[in-house]
């Protein structure tokens, strides 16, 4: 069965249509990139799937079950993990505690009042940190990490929920180019080995064309193209509407909002 099915999802803010009849599907183990110029509605679509925004119309199905109206918390329990455009971690805690917190919540222990949180699920947390290459920093305060490292910790937190679907909103924003490729390689290998479907938005075209299995192009709230990276790269509509000219494929930072 299809992992994630998005059906005619729509959302307007006042008179502005941020998303209109967005339809797509995502399979297990697939890396799907959602791209579009600024203001195209990427974050809106993303937040409707993540549960931060309520949609006006349409449905979001996870494993065939309707999750359109449920809270982010309930989505977590159904297997949705996410990272944020601006990394969100618990800065007052150590790196390991950040991941332990997610494990505690998964085990439904977050209301426990007695034995210390510090000691719970530590082994599993260290394993997850090892997978993202952050095991050495386990006992450092999260507030002392470089931004790129916080993004890795965020990935470990998201993986702690044993997600079926991973939502990554601009996963490499604010990272150095080499770090970007490394993080996305890591994500792709985890997704492949565990059969996690990954939906991500991205402005960096190297990341998009280098790591996505399939690309969706959003413009003014509508999907105007969908296909393999090479097809998207050569699609005249996409070039015309989104990228402006041929050079923009190499230098996407010049892309303008329509």
């Amino acid at each position, binding site marked *: 069965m299809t992992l994630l099915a998005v059906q005619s999802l729509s959302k307007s803010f006042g008179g502005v249509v941020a998303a209109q009849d967005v339809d797509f599907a995502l399979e297990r183990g697939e890396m799907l990139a959602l791209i579009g110029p600024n203001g195209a509605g990427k974050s809106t679509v993303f937040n409707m799937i*993540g*549960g*931060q925004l309520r949609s006006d119309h349409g449905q979001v199905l996870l494993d065939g079950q309707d999750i359109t109206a449920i*809270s*982010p*918390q*309930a*989505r*977590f*329990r159904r297997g*949705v*993990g*996410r990272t*944020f455009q601006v990394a*969100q*971690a*618990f*800065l*007052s*805690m*150590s790196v390991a*505690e950040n991941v332990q*917190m*997610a494990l*505690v*919540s*998964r085990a439904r*222990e*977050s*209301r*426990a*009042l*007695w*034995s*210390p*949180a*510090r000691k*719970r699920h530590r082994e599993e947390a260290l394993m997850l940190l090892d997978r993202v290459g952050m095991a050495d920093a386990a*006992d450092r*305060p999260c*507030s002392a990490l470089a931004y790129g490292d916080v993004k890795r910790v*965020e990935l470990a*937190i*998201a993986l*702690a*929920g044993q997600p079926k679907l991973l939502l990554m909103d601009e996963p490499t924003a604010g990272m150095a180019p080499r770090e970007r490729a490394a993080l996305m390689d890591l994500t792709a290998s985890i997704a492949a080995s565990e059969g996690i479907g990954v939906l991500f938005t991205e402005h960096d075209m190297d990341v998009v064309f280098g790591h996505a299995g399939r690309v969706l192009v959003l413009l003014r709230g509508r999907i105007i193209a969908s296909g393999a990276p090479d097809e998207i790269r050569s699609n005249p509509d996409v070039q015309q509407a989104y990228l402006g000219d041929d050079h923009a494929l190499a230098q996407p930072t010049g892309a303008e909002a329509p």
Partner: protein
Amino acid sequence: MDPSFLVIQALNGLASASSLFITACGLTIVFGVTRIVNFAHGSLYMIGAYTAATLVPRLLELSFGPVSFWAGILVSALIVGIIGVLIEVLLLRRIYGAPELFQLLATFGLVLVVQDLVVQVFGPQDILGPRAPGLRAPVEILGRRFPSYELVLIAAGPVVLGLVWLLLRRTRFGVLVRAATQDRDMIAALGVNQAILFTGTLFLGAFLAGLGGALQIPRVAANTGMDLAIIAEAFVVTVVGGMGSVTGAFLAALIIGQLQAFGILIFPKSTLVVVFLLMAVVLAIRPNGLFGRPETVGGTHAVGIASHKPRSSNWILGLAAIAALACLPLAADAYLLKVATEILIFALFAFSLQLLIGVGGLVSFGHAAFFGLGAYGAALAVKWLGAPMEAALPAGLVLAGTGAALIGAFVVRLSGIYLAMMTLAAAQILYAVAFQWVEVTGGDNGIVGVWPSAWASGQVPYYLMTLGLTVVAVFLLVRIINAPFGYALRAARDSEPRAESIGINLRQHRWLAFMISGAAAGLSGGLYAFSRGSVDPGLLGIPTSVDALTMLLLGGIQTVMGPLVGAGVLHFLRDQIMPLTSLWRLFLGLSIIAMVLLFPRGLVGTVQHWREERA
């Protein structure tokens, strides 16, 4: 019912709505631009009233007539405006970037300072101002006499609304104020001189507060209780109207004025309860008030406890401290033991607040509610049920926990400053109930004869019992802070989106935190009632809440043990200094301001920081 009576009541409601609006309008404009909830706004109102009540009679002696009267009112408001400028330049300017809790505490420090200064400058007596020349005779409306000055007041509200509207719409300053209310950072990025804008805003806000106060002089004598009385109402008006919205404040003031005028027909004793219930209802339906917008300030603003490596030496220190406290009766006299008992009680009270503020980032400004509920719960059980102490203490704890469950259910829907004001309002409701429901609570006199059981009635046994209960409660709270529940609260404080996306139900956890914290505060309240033998409404008042906050600030909000140290130091200082000076509030207020500005880590936080720097 007599229609003429209804008309008169409605007119009375309009007159108080006008006064309330003029004052609250200044508060909401200042908040809109500076994002500071100025607790001292009520103090500015009080200064306006005192200044006018002193100045206007002198002017009337020089030349008697309406011109002198109104000129005196305006000059008084201008003087208050200049005081507002001084406050902005000397204090507020330094705390715009500080966490909300520190801003509230610093401006409350100002309230304390002004209370003592007003007595120094104007003397301890209430001052009744002169009646306005030309408006002395009442007018007759539907066969009833109605003071003509009230009609002028009724007109003053809309006039001020119109002038403020013109100022905000038609002047460059107004454009900047509106722009800053929408997006302060953008205004800064556009190169607007923020210093002048903020100073100007404070002048306007203080001027309106002063005007509101000055206009009261023919109706009410200027008195030292005016500041906290008006600030609670002004908070309600701004919160109901939506923080930063002038029209919202006007509408809210109209509603509240009418509610107060007609509320006495339904609840003859407690109009305050009706008003605060309105606020509860509005905030439950519209968490940002009638015209307010959601706050963009997020959880990053919260300061609080962070993870530290557990030290084995902490255990030894803790046990040593407990042992030393247990041996205190061997060395101390009865007076010292009484002080030590009170310190322990307040330490538990402050510590219970730490669970909300330091751990959860929930700035509760009405923690006195739970302390007072615990005390009254115990006292009522003794008075009405004849319960012994062993049953009355748990009764107080249960009442406080239940109160916290009810209040918490409302306030966990809110965030930041709205949560602070809503908790304050909840405490004020309970204060009003305790004050006005005389048959049950004894009103102002409170309840006496709340004595401990025979085995605990001596100074030493009661001290030891308090020590035991406090140690057990603090130990349990520390376990909770370190347990997953405490961590989940911290997670919600650090990043709400992250906490939600790992499946933590924020409201549910915060609600539970309110209940636990409320129950612990209730235990301390019950212990306090039995230690003094009586309770009175003061236990539920704003100063009690601020005591707990000051203890937290003094000890260090980022530390687990800070509140205990803070409670000890504050109580000790109070005990030592209060008998020496009549200016205790001035001293305390200045100390709070100094701590916020110079010493925000607190005592324990500074030591901890120093140890970590060295390591």
